């Protein structure tokens, strides 16, 4: 009995209520009726109907008001308005206000059955969609927390003990032992990095990201990144040179994630460069876009690898041969972040000669709001 769908009919005409009940009785429905809006809405609370038929023209509160209050009680209840041909305009209006369909009077038994059937299907889809969304969210949250804690804890204990061993806390290891320990540390470190990146990737919520957009000066952001990577570059005698026509138009974005994108791309350029070489970062304005080109004279990317480098966990063959270990996720995250900014990342590369990554971001347009507008009001609109 529990899979029987509940239909509520709110109409002041007894003949309509009776005929609807009569027609739908043969289907697998539980049917309840109310003769006015107030009574109908009261019934909705306890009945929790799947669909509600509402007459638009009734004494007391109007059908439109019933629709509005209905959606406040439970937005997943599917409503259908019953209306005479003379009020077809108001049926259209009702649909604009969230009614799913309308039933013109007079109607045939088949018409009613069909509309009821369609409305039930719509209701089921709505409920399924909500359930799936909740499930997806739950899986995402659980998986992320399981991975970040359960999987990382043992690795952290392993790594911390390895550190103690290799630093000679329990007696100085001989050179061969030291080398083996270093190899183990490197692999554990790569695994930890991969887990961290994966956690970051799954916890990125792009809808939230847009809410954090604000005007950004790219040259300032890039120089921040170059500053953060200085130690890494200096230790291998790599020079990072930034070229920028000053000043450039601002872009609209989230500073934190864009920092991550450039940490990734410029960091990669440094990582895969020959010692003592140069990484160049160029910022150019082209029409409505800002292009940021990051070039290195490093190992480059094999032609057949290029289509895959933005895929999850993909690591080029050149990389797997080199001593550099990455998570294989940095570019995936970067690409997703760029997508959320309506931007893009592309790459050109020649193996053995180097690579150029081009990041494109749209310039900030006026219609997104100007600096004169207070940010608070902009947020409240969204």
């Amino acid at each position: 009995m529990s899979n029987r769908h509940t239909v509520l009919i709110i109409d002041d005409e007894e003949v309509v209520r009776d005929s609807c009940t009569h027609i739908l009785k043969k289907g697998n429905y539980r049917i309840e009726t109310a003769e006015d809006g107030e009574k109908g809405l009261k019934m909705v609370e306890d009945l929790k109907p799947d669909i509600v038929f509402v007459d638009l023209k009734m004494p007391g509160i109007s059908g439109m008001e019933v629709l509005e209050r209905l959606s406040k009680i439970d937005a997943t209840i599917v409503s259908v308005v019953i209306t005479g041909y003379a009020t077809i305009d108001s049926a259209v209006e009702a649909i604009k206000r969230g009614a799913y369909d309308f039933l013109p009077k007079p109607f045939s038994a088949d018409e009613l059955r069909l509309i009821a059937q369609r409305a039930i299907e719509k209701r089921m889809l709505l409920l399924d969609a909500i359930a799936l969304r909740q499930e997806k969210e739950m899986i995402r949250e659980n998986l992320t927390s399981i991975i970040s804690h359960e999987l990382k804890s043992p690795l952290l204990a392993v790594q911390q003990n390895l550190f103690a061993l290799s630093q000679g806390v329990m007696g100085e290891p001989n050179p061969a032992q030291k080398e083996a320990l270093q190899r183990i540390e490197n692999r554990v470190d790569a695994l930890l990095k991969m887990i961290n990146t994966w956690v970051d990737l799954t916890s990125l919520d792009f809808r939230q990201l847009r809410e954090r957009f604000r005007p950004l000066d790219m040259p300032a952001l890039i120089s921040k990144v170059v500053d953060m990577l200085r130690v890494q570059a200096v230790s291998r005698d790599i020079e990072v040179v930034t070229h920028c026509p000053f000043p450039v138009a601002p872009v609209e974005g989230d500073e934190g994630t864009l920092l991550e994108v450039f940490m990734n791309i410029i960091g990669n350029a440094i990582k895969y460069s020959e010692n003592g070489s140069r990484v160049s970062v160029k910022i150019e304005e082209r029409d409505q876009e800002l292009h940021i080109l990051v070039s290195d004279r490093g190992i480059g990317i094999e032609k057949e690898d290029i289509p895959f480098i933005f895929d999850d966990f993909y690591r080029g063959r050149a990389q797997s041969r080199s001593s550099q270990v990455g998570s294989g996720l940095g570019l995936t995250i970067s690409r997703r972040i760029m997508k959320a900014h309506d931007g893009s990342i592309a790459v050109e590369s020649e193996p053995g000669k180097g690579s150029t990554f081009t990041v494109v971001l749209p310039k900030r347009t006026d219609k997104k709001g100007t600096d004169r507008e207070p940010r608070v009001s902009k947020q409240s609109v969204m």
Partner: protein
Amino acid sequence: MDGKRILMIDDDPDYVSAIKMVLEKANYTVEVAHNPRDGFDALEHSAFDLVILDVMMGRGAEGIIAARKLRKKKELDKMPVLMMTGIREQTGFFFVGDPRHETYLPVDGFLEKPVAPDVLLREVSRLLEKSATDESMKKE
């Protein structure tokens, strides 16, 4: 800094022993509590110069609650607290920069696990020195 007493509150004994070895080799005295309750017990019964605190213990971010509780206790609110954790910043993505929020995490230092032994020792002695300076300034 010889003989300074450190209390480590962390639920993973394998992790703890690796840290303990490093600290003891540097002549610190280390006591361990595997949950915040035992930690507060230890703090009540003997004197320490520094607390090293894990975040994820048991069912959730108990370390954060413990840090706040510690700050509320009058006799302990000057105790330097070094938070050491494997979790990333709670708010979502950000890994660039300092992951500590002053209001969110009332701690003096923050290190992400795993910690290189020299980084750990440097941070511990920095916090102990800072606390000693604060103390002597108060006396003057």
